[in-house]
């Protein structure tokens, strides 16, 4: 394991702001992409890549690495920004997002260093996570497999097929993380297709659930460590988040699901984030 673990909350918070700025700059340059669902993911990814996961940017294929599968592939700007910052590929690549010939496709494509799966068609990641865990069981190794899903994404039936498979086979190396930002495309999740009682659903499917504030690093770190202690069943972190988190005029606005900031909007957003940075 070559990456440095950070437990210092201030450092993590600063990192999150830097990542948010990169996300917004990438999206502005590309002119399209998913802003809201990228910004809600930031603390989750930062906690995983700078605190929790065993991974090595210089040796991305290392068999013993922990895996991060971004099942909600449209949130990839956040993942790209984190991977670049970790050193998986040069930061300049970020500015090629969604451009012809760039490895930073509109949705993640296998081949870019640090990307574990292609995704973008929602609902497929959790089954893949299970497959990795099942293969690892045969090989008697046990890296952790983290799979990030959107709350809306869990409307998909395949998620619940996979939920049953994971609990049936007791896949305790699988840790689902739901970016529970309460919004999807058509509106609030509760209006589109109610998910509640959400934790109970997972529990009744045989999962250990942890429910936390997905922007609170202390809570994230504790929950990720807590999850390690559960060794007889799969677990899921229901991370309560805010779609568009960190930028006042993007937060909780359904219309910011699938659009990129324009130049003036980017300036405004960066000013806000720079103010935040000063407070850290």
């Amino acid at each position, binding site marked *: 394991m070559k990456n440095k673990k950070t437990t210092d909350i201030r450092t993590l918070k600063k990192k999150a702001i830097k990542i948010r700025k990169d996300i917004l700059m990438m999206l502005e340059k590309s002119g399209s992409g998913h802003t809201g669902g990228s910004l809600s993911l930031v603390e989750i990814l930062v906690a995983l890549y700078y605190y929790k996961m065993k991974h090595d940017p210089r040796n991305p294929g290392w068999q013993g690495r922990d895996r991060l599968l971004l099942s909600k592939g449209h949130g990839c700007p956040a993942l790209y920004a984190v991977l670049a910052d970790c050193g998986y590929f040069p930061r300049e690549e970020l500015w090629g997002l969604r451009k012809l010939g760039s490895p930073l496709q509109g949705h993640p494509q296998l081949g870019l260093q640090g990307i*574990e*799966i*292609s995704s973008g068609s929602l609902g497929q990641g959790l*089954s893949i996570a299970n*497959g990795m865990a*099942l293969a690892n069981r045969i090989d008697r190794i046990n890296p952790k497999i983290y799979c990030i899903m959107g709350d809306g994404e869990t409307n998909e039936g*395949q998620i619940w097929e996979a939920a049953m498979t994971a609990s049936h086979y007791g896949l305790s190396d699988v840790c689902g993380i739901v970016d529970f930002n309460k919004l999807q495309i058509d509106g609030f999740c509760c209006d589109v297709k109610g998910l509640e009682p959400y934790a109970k659903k997972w529990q009744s499917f045989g999962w250990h659930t942890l429910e936390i504030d997905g922007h609170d690093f202390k809570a994230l770190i504790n929950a990720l460590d807590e999850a390690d202690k559960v060794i007889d069943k799969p677990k899921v972190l229901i991370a309560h988040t805010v779609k568009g988190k960190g930028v006042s005029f993007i937060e909780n606005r359904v219309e910011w699901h699938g659009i990129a900031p324009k130049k003036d909007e980017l300036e405004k957003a960066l000013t806000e984030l720079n103010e935040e940075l000063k407070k850290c």
Partner: protein
Amino acid sequence: MQEELKKKPTRDGAGEALLELGRKNKNVVVLSADLTDSTRAGWFKKEFPERFIGFGVAEQDMLGTASGMALSGKIPFACTFGVFASGRAWDQVRVSVAYMNLNVKIIGTHCGVTVGEDGATHQAIDEIALMRILPNMKVVVPADAIEAYKATMQAAECDGPVYLRLGRQAAPVLTKAEDPFIIGKAVLYRDGKDVTIIACGHSLYEAKKAHEKLKEEGIEARVINLHTPKPIDRKLILAAARETGAIVTVEEHTVLAGMGSAVCEVVSQEYPVPIKMVGIKDVFGESGKSMELLKYFNLATEDVVRAAHEALDAKKHR
């Protein structure tokens, strides 16, 4: 006198190969979605329970899990009926398997109308199309149990995703263990100079009988066993177009976008000659007995013979 051919389902050939692969290659794992005995995955399960994973009735999850296992170095064979492996789980095959060019092997059994009484929902008659249009995917349709065995063994060896199309019912064994079989390389099954019949899967038997009938009429029909609709063997097909000047395709599949269409794509662009397609004409399947259905859907020997005459006529009147 018609010689008596031994009969055996292609799914049995594949099942035997899986068992052999289990012994030879510890990376081979077998997945099944509540059709473990029907697909013959059960033979592997019995001997290698620790490398068998059952999913219940959850094909999408099975294909996704296969993807994860392949990403972690395994060679998963995902087994279910052809209709469900393709139609039900198509987007999972597309994104989680083909897009990542993963080593997932898909075994689809009970294909074609000859599955019989179960009817349209269970008769895979469009999955050659569904699978072959996916980049990276190989599509193999063994003509008999011996080819199914070889195809399964080779699928484990070759890189990337493979779809194996297999049947339920006992089908005539047309090839020998010592015959060469290479995925992607079509076989010249009978030589002839007047017209070429290109067949895959069980339809090779109808092509063979058509060849014999035509011979009685003094027509020499070449027969090609196109067991791999994709990647297609352009060379053998174009040689047939050039040398016989007329082609008939035969498949237990819709004529839309199937094996015959794949032949047309090659021939029409590179050496156009008249082609007649024997296949299902844009309709769903029906319940019935295998042989009844072959006749009902015009997939029987006499239909191949008729198509050969039409192709010959077209050739003459060009």
